[in-house]
């Protein structure tokens, strides 16, 4: 008798733990419970582990779960390095691999596999979302503050491409080191460029620090500040006083509609925090997987993948979401703006949706894809 | 080759405006025991440090066996055969006595960098090491760990190790300092014994030792040479008596 075992390995203690972490595990467990706790007549099991942002731990955990615990699906978490390494293991072992936390578009591009589903956001979507929407709104000249490593470069490149394609202009960029504590000097350089938009091609603490310093130096008065990768947890910890007006793209927001609010409140009851878009995606993806298993009545990865790829996803997270041949789940994204403190009416009332971005407009196109499975 | 094994010309060392050694021209005769004495702070240790290049001279030159060694590195000078001992005893405390001596002998094998070779290859040195230990009367303690040794024995071991380098010139800085009377006598004898076929330059405050074994004495004062000559001549030099030995004859013998 086949048993569904989900292995979830993510960063539970370090840099990215607020984005997904334990909250992700909670969301997955909620999905399992809502599904009835059983699949194929057997209780569904959830294994979790902290990969401490080390690829070798993530990969060996996944490998071990598959070999010794019979994991049927691996849920990979934040941090692109670990995600790519784990995806490889899942491919080798022929197991379904779903990822929400990692941003790297490589997962469904040059490193795509038949078993990978990249469910939530990715860097291309963020870039196209924020970049495209802002140019449409008339913000034509850009200056980037870019984290000096592959991730930052990718964000900057993707966004620049969109900005230029839409007739905007990139006036320059300055590269800052990872975990730079002080951004003032970079910001002065940005300011003297006289661009309309300051694009923050960085993440986490770097984004927070740059937004904070932009406020301090009054740069937000002359430039529109756009974060390219911002999570609800970042906004929460910084406070609206520091981030009010920050534009960015997200794959989901708890206050976007009734169904989302319902999920948000249910999650809040458990965790005393509102879910991030990644945690919401964790719930939705688990549901999608379990429904597929129930439908094909087996955990066989090929069959499950086939079913998932042909069945549209409709829930509080995605409307008519489609998993493409390259593994990318295509769904609507949202350009949002952080509210000013005065606009916020209740706890966690942080964002207003500026624009809905149809999935086709934000994710990689077939023409750009380097994935061999989608040719 | 000149009769002098070591010659310095106008050797000078200045420390930030203070001249510790100034214009010292020293000639050390081959196969002699040469003592360097002088009041505290005269610059004796500094002189040693210059000769072995533990300090860089401000000016002047050092010739060893007729060759200018003023620009050479400490280890290089050691390899030429100029070996020093320290004012504080210098042994390898957690090695056994025989290993201590072998460290000195080992360099000659040319395998010091051979990390792939077994240490058994060092056994060929054991005979020579034992011989050296016997020379200083430590043969029975060969396999003891050095830390446990009394002070005087450590000095003896140090001399054995120094000998293992086959030094042409040994520089001894206060070899009897901090020793009991028996040890002093023992080390004095030892120095005399090993001086055969070698040259020894030593700093010593113990006039008894100096008077018994030194062939020639240089007296330093305030960094300059005050007098030079055999013991009897130097010790009766009024300037030396004034500056170093003190006035009464009793005390002359009596510093130790």
């Amino acid at each position, binding site marked *: 008798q086949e048993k569904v075992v989900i292995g979830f390995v993510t960063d539970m*203690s*370090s*840099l*990215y*733990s*607020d*984005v997904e972490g334990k909250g992700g595990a909670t969301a997955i467990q909620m999905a399992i419970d809502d599904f009835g706790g059983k699949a194929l007549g057997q209780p569904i099991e959830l294994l979790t582990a902290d990969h401490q942002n080390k690829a070798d731990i993530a990969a060996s955990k996944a490998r071990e779960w598959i070999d010794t615990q019979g994991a049927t699906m691996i849920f990979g978490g934040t941090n692109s390095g670990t995600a790519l390494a784990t995806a490889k293991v899942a491919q080798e072992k022929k197991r379904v691999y779903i990822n929400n936390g990692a941003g790297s578009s490589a997962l469904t591009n040059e490193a795509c596999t038949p078993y990978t589903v990249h469910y939530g956001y990715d860097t291309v979507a963020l870039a196209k979302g924020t970049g495209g929407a802002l140019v449409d709104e008339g913000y034509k000249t850009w200056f980037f503050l870019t984290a*000096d490593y592959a991730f930052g470069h990718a964000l900057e490149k993707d966004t620049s491409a969109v900005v230029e394609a839409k007739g905007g202009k990139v006036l320059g960029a*300055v*590269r*800052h*080191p*990872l*975990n*730079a*504590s*002080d951004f*003032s*000097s*970079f910001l*002065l*350089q940005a300011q*003297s460029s006289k661009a309309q938009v300051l694009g923050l091609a960085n993440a*986490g*603490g770097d984004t*927070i*620090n740059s937004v*904070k*310093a932009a406020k*301090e*130096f*009054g740069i937000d008065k002359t430039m529109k500040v756009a974060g390219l990768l911002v*999570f609800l*947890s*970042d906004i*929460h*910890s*910084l*406070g609206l*006083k*520091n981030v009010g007006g920050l534009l960015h793209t997200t794959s989901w927001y708890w206050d976007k509609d009734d169904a989302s609010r319902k999920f948000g409140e249910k999650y809040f009851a458990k965790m005393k925090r509102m879910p991030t878009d990644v945690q919401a995606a964790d719930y939705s993806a688990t549901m999608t997987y379990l429904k597929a298993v129930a439908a094909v009545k087996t955990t066989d990865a090929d069959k499950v993948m086939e079913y998932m790829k042909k069945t549209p996803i409709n829930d509080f997270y995605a409307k008519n979401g489609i998993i493409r041949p390259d593994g990318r789940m295509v769904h609507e994204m949202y350009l949002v703006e952080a509210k000013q403190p005065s606009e916020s009416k209740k706890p966690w009332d942080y964002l207003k949706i500026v624009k809905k971005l149809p999935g086709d407009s934000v994710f990689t196109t077939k023409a750009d894809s380097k994935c061999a499975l989608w040719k | 080759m000149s009769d002098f094994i070591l010659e310095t010309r106008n050797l000078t060392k200045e420390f930030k405006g203070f001249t510790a050694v100034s214009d010292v021209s020293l000639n050390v005769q081959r196969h002699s025991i040469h003592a360097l004495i002088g009041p505290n702070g005269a610059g004796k240790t500094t002189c040693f440090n210059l000769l072995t290049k533990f300090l860089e001279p401000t000016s002047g030159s050092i010739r060893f066996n007729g060759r200018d060694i003023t620009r050479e590195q400490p280890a290089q000078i050691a390899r030429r055969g100029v070996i020093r001992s320290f004012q504080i005893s210098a042994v390898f405390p957690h090695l056994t006595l025989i290993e201590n001596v072998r460290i000195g002998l080992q360099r000659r094998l040319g395998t010091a960098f051979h990390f792939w070779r077994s240490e058994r290859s060092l056994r060929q040195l054991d005979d020579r090491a034992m011989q050296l230990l016997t020379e200083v009367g430590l043969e029975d303690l060969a396999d003891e760990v050095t830390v446990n040794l009394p002070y005087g024995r450590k000095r003896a071991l140090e001399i054995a190790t120094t000998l293992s380098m086959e030094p042409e010139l040994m520089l001894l800085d206060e070899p009897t300092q901090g020793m009991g009377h028996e040890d002093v006598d023992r080390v004095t004898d030892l120095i005399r014994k090993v001086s055969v076929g070698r040259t020894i330059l030593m700093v010593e405050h113990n006039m008894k030792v100096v008077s018994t074994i030194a062939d020639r004495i240089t007296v330093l004062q305030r960094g300059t040479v005050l007098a030079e000559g055999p013991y009897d001549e130097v010790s009766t030099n009024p300037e030396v008596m004034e500056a170093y030995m003190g006035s009464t004859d009793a005390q002359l013998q009596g510093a130790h």
Partner: protein
Amino acid sequence: MEFFGISLPGLLSQLLLGLVNGSFYAILSLGLAVIFGLLNVINFAHGALFMMGAVITWMAMNYFGINYWVMLVVAPLVVGVFGVLIERLLLRWIYKLDHLYGLLLTLGLTLLIEGVFRSVYGVSGLGYDTPDLLSGGTNLGFMFLPNYRAWVVVASISVCLATWFVIEKTKLGAYLRAGTENPRLVEAFGVNVPVMVTLTYAFGAALAAFAGVLSAPVYQVSPLMGQNMIIVVFAVVVIGGMGSIMGSILTGLGLGVIEGFTKVFYPEASSTVVFVIMVIVLLIRPAGLFGKEN
């Protein structure tokens, strides 16, 4: 007027900003130097103590509404008391050992402290607002300088100079320096060295916490904030040479400025420039700029 394509006002403003960062380096490397001096311990936990200063300030504001100015005094005191505990309970046992154990003990301590704070506060960083008195900024003509940043420079340089004065010019300082070399003998002269050691560590910890409080409104307050700082500060210390108190202050400030300029001329290298300087300094002066040989 332009230099290498950057206007003079631009340069001036970068110089000022560099000084701000340099101030943090200066206080932290000063604390390290003081602790290293008397305890002969490289205090890896310095970064964690720095972080504690900031987080405690944040906690006081959020749980008790205690404002910044009070915390500027209270946080260093609290962390200083914590330092007393560390010294009395842990460090005390390892003085006789090789210095490597001090480094490892404080490294372990760092992991522990950071772990605890992390499990409570997560890592995304906590916001702390600039105190009202110092919000806003001054237009200096060539730049807009937030008042708070100016305050950071003034406050940290004053603290550094006061420390320098005490250590180099007073009797207490002489005890400290002598105690550094031979604590037992200084004790035999009638000085209560164990208490002096404890207080020194506490003082170093308090300095780190002071820097932490200063940094709270500028940087994000996060359990990991010390980790990124500490290694750079180690490099600062190597460059300065820990030979003198003034040396560590000047080196800290100087490197802050150099790092600032690097951010303008070649930002890619701004995270490595301190290490590159370290290499160059070591080639020319193995003992560091202000260090004494041997």
